[in-house]
């Protein structure tokens, strides 16, 4: 079933000796780099730093919610924390982490020497720190950071804004430009840089998911840019897009925002599907079950994501027809998603499974993401959504899909490719500690939130009624434990970069893919000449 890939082709060896060529030294190497591996590394480190920053905010949030009453922070500062936590995790942690994966892996998986637009690649990374400097800098200004929720509903972010709207808008503009440039680079790379002989349907599913995600980004990030621009002019230049007094409509804001917002949700999960679809076959020692159906399922999810946005707005007073339309469309998404979950399970079925850390995170992903999917189905039902809306049930739902979904897939991918990136095996014991601590604490953190939400605890409020006290205490303990567990990962990565068991070119015996045909660590320049057809055929994820 598995076939050995010819490791270390002659053309790679040829490059091994010259792989320092073109590298500058010191800070300049990172500032001026156009190398996809360097930029991938920058993205991944940036994402991890942002993850710890947003995580620190979550720790303060959970400390405040440890017991009822107001203990640590003022309600207004609490609102700033929830807002910026959300913005950072979405735009600063998950999305840049995936872009980092794309940069590192796409050229190597496609047999391309680099991304198609290396100079733009440099820009799209280096404007990101400025965006987040603006966003985080607003904490230190008189008005404070944005406090209107990461969804920045008008009129909270216009008429009732604390004065941070301009900083927020410019930060989002820069993040958006960065994402759009990154996405254009991904699309152009995939369309134009594939090795000769690699057809679209021979691309690894990982590449497919990033291809589709990049299209989603190109389609909806400009809409986000548009809606924050309207916000800006409404707040500072006297327009009335969302101001009822001037003939505008605040509900219109929600329509435009969620027209961006729902595809955004899939932007954060489709790449996760790609990573997991790479890892599960490896450690099942089988080909991916139903490659073609995976491609179509991903495309269907992407398409459906454009026609379900109003399920975030069931309580705004929509007519019955609208509620039914958006309810049924939303539930329809469960079908392609179900195809995917089925395919992952079928890939594992009767495979020779081993449970290395990437596989553990992937299996946890399949189970826990599915739990998040089910709570999503519950939220999709209009009548019950009236009860769940704006409660901790929603918080539980999207943290299951984003933390145990997207984040766990990022961990899975990081452990899977760390040997390729660093040339060393990670510390297995520590990585298992990271996994088990994360798994237990994340469920203690988010599962009781379902019950809190069903019992009526509203989200984004710094205080709560006494009957919610016990669950909140456990949630907070889970939160602190989860936060601390992530530091183990930092230790694992640093140890892995500094040394450790030398990794072979292909450390996982069941792995397929062109990235394993080059040495570990991957030479600075790979595939200056395209890989041979035999390698491309070996990397084909179709079942034979």
């Amino acid at each position, binding site marked *: 079933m598995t076939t050995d890939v010819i490791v270390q082709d002659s053309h790679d060896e040829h490059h091994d000796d010259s792989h320092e060529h073109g590298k500058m030294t010191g800070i300049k190497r990172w500032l001026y780099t156009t190398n996809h591996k360097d930029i991938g590394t920058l993205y991944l480190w940036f994402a991890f730093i942002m993850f710890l920053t947003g995580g620190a905010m979550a720790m303060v949030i959970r400390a405040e919610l440890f017991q009822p009453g107001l203990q640590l922070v003022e309600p207004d500062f609490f609102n700033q924390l929830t807002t910026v936590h959300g913005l950072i995790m979405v735009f600063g942690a998950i999305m840049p982490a995936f872009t980092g994966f794309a940069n590192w892996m796409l050229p190597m998986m496609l047999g*391309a*020497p680099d991304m*198609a*637009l290396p100079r733009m690649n440099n820009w799209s990374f280096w404007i990101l720190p400025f965006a987040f400097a603006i966003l985080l800098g607003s904490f230190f200004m008189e008005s404070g950071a944005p406090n209107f929720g990461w969804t920045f509903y008008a009129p909270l972010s216009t*008429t*009732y804004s604390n004065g941070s709207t301009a900083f927020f808008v410019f930060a989002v503009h820069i993040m958006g430009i960065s994402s*759009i440039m990154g996405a*254009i680079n991904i*699309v*152009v790379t995939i*369309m*134009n*840089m*594939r*090795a*000769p*002989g*690699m*057809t*679209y349907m*021979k691309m690894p599913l990982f590449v497919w998911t990033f291809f589709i995600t990049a299209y989603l980004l*190109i*389609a*909806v*990030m*400009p*809409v*986000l*840019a*548009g*809606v924050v621009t*309207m916000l800006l002019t409404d707040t500072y230049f*006297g327009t*009335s*897009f969302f101001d*009822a*007094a*001037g*003939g505008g*409509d605040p*509900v*219109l804001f929600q*329509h*435009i925002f969620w*027209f*961006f917002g729902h595809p955004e949700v899939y932007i954060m999960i489709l790449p996760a599907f790609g990573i997991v679809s790479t890892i599960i076959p490896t450690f099942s020692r089988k080909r991916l079950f139903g490659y073609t159906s995976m491609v179509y399922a991903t495309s269907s999810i992407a398409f459906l994501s454009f026609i379900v946005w109003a399920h975030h707005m069931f309580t705004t*007073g*929509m*007519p019955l027809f*609208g509620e039914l339309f958006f309810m049924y469309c939303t539930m329809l998404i469960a079908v392609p998603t179900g195809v995917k979950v089925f395919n992952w399970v079928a890939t594992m079925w009767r495979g020779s499974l081993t449970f290395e850390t990437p596989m553990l995170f992937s299996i946890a992903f399949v189970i826990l993401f599915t739990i998040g999917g089910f709570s999503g189905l519950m939220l999709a039902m209009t009548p019950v959504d009236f009860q769940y809306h704006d409660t901790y049930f929603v918080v539980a739902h999207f943290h299951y899909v984003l933390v145990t979904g997207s984040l766990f897939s990022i961990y899975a991918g990081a452990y899977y490719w760390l040997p390729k990136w660093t040339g060393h095996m990670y510390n297995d014991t520590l990585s298992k500690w990271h996994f088990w601590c994360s798994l237990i604490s994340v469920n203690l953190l988010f599962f009781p939130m379902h019950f809190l939400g069903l019992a009526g605890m509203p989200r984004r409020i710094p205080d709560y009624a006494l009957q919610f006290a016990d669950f909140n205490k456990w949630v907070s303990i889970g939160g602190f434990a989860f936060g601390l567990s992530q530091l183990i990962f930092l230790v694992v990565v640093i140890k892995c970069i500094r040394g450790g068991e030398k990794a072979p070119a292909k450390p996982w015996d069941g792995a397929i893919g062109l990235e394993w045909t080059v040495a570990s660590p991957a030479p600075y320049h790979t595939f200056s*000449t*395209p890989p*041979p*057809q*035999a390698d*491309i055929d070996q990397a084909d994820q179709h079942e034979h």
Partner: protein
Amino acid sequence: MSTDDRKNDSQHGSKAKLAPDKNNDGSSASANNTKTVKKLLLVVVAMFGFGFALVPLYDVFCDITGLNGKTNSTAVDYTATGIDESRTITVQFITRNAKGIPWQFEPVINEITVHPGEIKVVSFYAKNNSQHDIIGQAVPSVSPGLAANYFHKIECFCFTQQPLKSLEDVEMTLQFYVDLDLPKDINTLTLSYTLYDITEKSS
């Protein structure tokens, strides 16, 4: 693009040819890239425009369907072909001040019964209780939203701005009729006015 690839695929048999094809050829590859980038940038610009196009589209969509309870914003002529005395509709009036406008603002009568097609005139009372001159703007909304298209205002104070000097008061009129085609399951309409302070915006 994809047909090219299929051709490439069939050409590359079991013995791989390493000759770079046009995809990996320096100059034409970058020309190819520029073409793709241009197309994608076009999509970006179009979608940015689409975000703004949603504003008028939303209004048109709501106008046609009456989804968001918005009523006509300029006066309409009376066009009903009679009065349907078999039906009696209750029209309720409620008022609300948006944050920060210190006016007294209320309907003179809270509800009225009408037959479809019958013209009614009601009044609203407003008084500026502040020490400043303020320009107010009332924004109407009808509930249930789907009834909005069947509620016609022949004359309404909400069509214009209401400047009131400090401590000045005014009685403002609304002249309306309910359409003969009002859906049979709707027997009560609620007309809600929210009053906004637009002094800054109109100065």
